[in-house]
């Protein structure tokens, strides 16, 4: 029997580029991730029935993660090849003004793949198999909170909402 701890958890950003194969980039220094799926029901209970009767009508998948903000080389945001940092997520919604939008910036979160504005991530449990156990989903970041305080490392709390059903599930 095998149990898994946080040490087996990983978070990946799946980079999509038009006409090219996807590239999987591991996000470094992830402290935790969580995913939550809920089903919405409507009541079909009628007069004289004593107990609730429901029909499922929708599903919502949300998640969150906490990523430490750090630099491999002080003064440089660049990390080792194939690795992403908190900035990868931060820059998806915290953006400087775009010259094409007066006083604004693009809301697209998938800059490399124009057909969709959401981007793909993979939440993985490394069970030593080839691909591990994972959930791939296309998400929008709905909230990022970057906080700094005395006695603590800088970290970004990220919340995301799944666009449609997960793209691939093996868990």
């Amino acid at each position: 029997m095998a149990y898994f701890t946080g040490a087996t958890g990983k978070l990946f950003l799946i980079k999509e580029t038009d006409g090219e194969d996807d590239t999987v980039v591991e996000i470094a220094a992830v402290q935790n991730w969580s995913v939550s799926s809920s089903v919405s029901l409507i009541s079909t209970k009628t007069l004289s029935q004593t107990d609730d009767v429901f029909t499922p009508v929708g599903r919502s998948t949300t998640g969150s993660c906490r990523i430490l903000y750090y630099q491999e080389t002080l003064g440089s945001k660049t990390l080792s090849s194939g690795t992403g940092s908190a900035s990868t997520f931060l820059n998806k919604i915290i953006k400087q003004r775009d010259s094409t939008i007066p006083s604004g910036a693009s809301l697209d979160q998938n800059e490399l793949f124009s057909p969709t504005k959401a981007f793909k991530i993979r939440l993985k449990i490394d069970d030593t198999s080839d691909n591990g156990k994972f959930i791939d989903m296309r998400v929008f970041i709905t909230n990022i909170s970057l906080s700094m305080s005395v006695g603590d490392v800088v970290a970004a709390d990220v919340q995301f909402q799944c666009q449609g059903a997960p793209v691939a599930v093996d868990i």
Partner: protein
Amino acid sequence: MTFPITKTNGGDLVPSARTFESGDYPVKTYKAQNGAEHRVLYGSNRTNMKLSLTYANIRDVDAEKFLDHYDEVQGTFKTFVLENVEGTDINPTCVGWEGNQDALGAGTPGTPGKDYRYEGPPQVAQVASGRSTVTVNLIGVL
């Protein structure tokens, strides 16, 4: 011209909420100059009962039955009876009511005249794919 009482896939079509207003006898009220009230009763039967039925989150194919029925009775023109399920004394529109079924009828209990007609068109609100909530307002006529 049966009011929808059976689901497409079988089973009774039972409302999830029902309100009933018991109407009134045809009474005319006059006020005398001294303030005294005089009432004249013009008829012996209670009328103008109002029955509102809500069928929450039913399947669209069942919701459609109300629209078809509304068409069958030519909208608010023709009257109809809220019938029992064939061969039983169960009236799906009255399910849950433990009093005498006549009390929720369109006519005065014990007298003829149990017909309803639509007070207005059925209201259909789509709540999810394949599911709708239908509200039907009926009015009793003699």
